[in-house]
């Protein structure tokens, strides 16, 4: 019966490059291990109720295992517990879930988001020489992983006495278009700023567009989070100074491997860190980085 395992992989959404990479990793693992992968995310990005509905449905249908990137720390706990009662193992990835890894669910496979944030903060501090004005454009209300990144960033910046964060209560919103508008609306702050940080792909891209349009790209130090082809291009052109990169492909791969191992009776560590990596123009040609970015 082991040959026809069905693993449901449930991302937070389906339209970011990030999730496409996770899917690729998960499918690769599926092929290697000979299991069927069902990939299904909520249609409306960030709709918790819809994600719960999807988990419920897979539990109800009786899949062999569930791999889930929870949109919410608490709200997804109940359906995951129901899965536990029905003896369906669950691996959590990307964002955390309430409960104990190894007990309430099999493992937690993720980037250490806080570490990623502080990595970005430290690098920005270094670029500014320890002084100046910094703008933080947040992602969205209630998104746990990006909030951890923002927190990590602020912590490492606060250590630097003469760096002042001039904006930290603006939110980019879910799409790049809205992020650009939000950035344009604080353009006077951006003009005075020495450094900028954004916590995910869409906010980084929206900010980049706004900086470009106001001829600020390359003039302010800019650290973003996540990677996508346009962001890497901007990095190459010097419009972005650094990107904090996660390894989504590995995340998808590890998550699926972990759950299959569990089903097949092997033990897995409760927490698996898939690592963060600071990408700068300096290390772009590093073969490891190239592989991570999927560059030739």
């Amino acid at each position, binding site marked *: 019966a082991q040959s026809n395992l069905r693993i449901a992989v449930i991302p937070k959404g389906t339209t970011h490059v990030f999730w496409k990479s996770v899917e690729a990793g998960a499918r690769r693992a599926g092929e290697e291990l000979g299991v069927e992968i069902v990939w299904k995310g909520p249609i409306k990005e960030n709709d918790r*109720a819809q994600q719960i509905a999807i988990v419920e449905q897979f539990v109800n249908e009786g899949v062999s295992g569930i791999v889930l990137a929870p949109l919410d720390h608490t709200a997804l706990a109940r359906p995951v517990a129901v899965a536990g009662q029905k003896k369906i193992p669950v691996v959590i990835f990307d964002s955390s879930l309430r409960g104990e890894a190894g007990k309430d669910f099999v493992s937690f496979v993720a980037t250490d988001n806080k570490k990623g944030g502080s990595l970005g903060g430290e690098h920005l501090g270094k670029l500014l020489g320890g002084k100046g004005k910094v703008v933080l454009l947040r992602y969205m209300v209630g998104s746990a992983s990006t909030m951890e990144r923002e927190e990590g960033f602020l912590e490492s910046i606060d250590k630097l006495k003469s760096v002042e964060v001039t904006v930290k209560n603006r939110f980019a919103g879910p799409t790049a278009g809205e992020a650009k508008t939000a950035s344009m609306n604080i353009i006077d702050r951006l003009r005075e700023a020495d450094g900028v940080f954004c916590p995910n792909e869409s906010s980084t891209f929206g900010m980049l567009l706004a900086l470009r349009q106001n001829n600020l790209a390359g003039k302010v130090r800019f650290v973003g989070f996540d990677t996508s082809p346009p962001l890497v291009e901007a990095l190459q052109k010097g419009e972005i100074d650094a990107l904090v990169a996660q390894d989504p492909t590995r995340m998808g791969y590890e998550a699926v491997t972990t759950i299959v191992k569990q089903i097949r009776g092997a033990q897995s560590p409760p927490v698996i860190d898939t690592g963060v990596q600071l990408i700068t123009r300096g290390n772009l040609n590093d073969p490891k980085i190239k592989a991570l970015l999927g560059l030739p």
Partner: protein
Amino acid sequence: MNDRLRKLGPLTGLVFVFALFALLRPEHFPTADNLQLMLLQTAVVGTAALGMTIVIISGGIDLSVGSVVALSTVIIALLLNAGAPPLVAALGGVVIGSLCGLVIGTLITRLKLASFIVTLAMWGALRGVAKGLADEQMIIAPASWLNGLLNALTDDQRWMLLPPGVWLMLILALVVGGFLRYTQIGRHVVAVGSNEQTARLCGVPVGKTKLMVYMLGSSFAALAGVLQFSYLTVGDPTTGAGMELDVIAAVVIGGASFSGGEGKVSGSLVGALIMTVVANGCTKMELPNWVQEIVTGGIIIVAVALDRFRHRKIE
């Protein structure tokens, strides 16, 4: 006979959609468990759709439902955290909801503004309030029986037949149906929607009736919020974004008309069910999201068109 057929209304659409998926996925789709699940997943939108039915019959519209749902979950979580018993917390949510309706109704009747504008403004404003109260975060609340309203039944609960949240929706549907059909105020609501001028000429207290309509609309949205809270187990100021379209769609698929006077409670529930069934069935078919979006659009049109065609034939 024909008359009875016609009264079934959008049910044809539901039957069609259901049969379609049952044929395509006979092992996974028409199971008892999955049926229960679909009812569960309809409860939130269905309950809000009851209120929306009243509003649309009265000739208005309420875009703020999603925000009221969110506000209601936040209020409940806050009250639970403050130590209120679950029932009090739930009532608190509903009371706040009805106050929102009072504000909406007052603005519409006093300032003589279009309901679209007022509820659009409240759509933003109430979400702002929810976020402010929740300090822009999810609010975790202590577990209580509220969390169990929308759980699938365990074996020793089988006697209930359906989860309590689903019962709530069904009973409320009967109440609203009776209200619209058999009470004076209910008939006044229909009269106002059918021809406001006439209602006024005949001495129907149009202002008061409308006020009550919007209070009911928001109260039902807040009740939907209670169910949503049960579903999420947290107070979430961002939940229900875009829900207004789902709710309005359910009511309109159910046969209501924006020009007022027309609409059926049972139709609205069927409309809500159609949408759940399509979403559930598409997942069972393992369609990619973008295909599901296209298919859903197509099915909505077919379901509604079927209904219209049947009508025309009978006439």
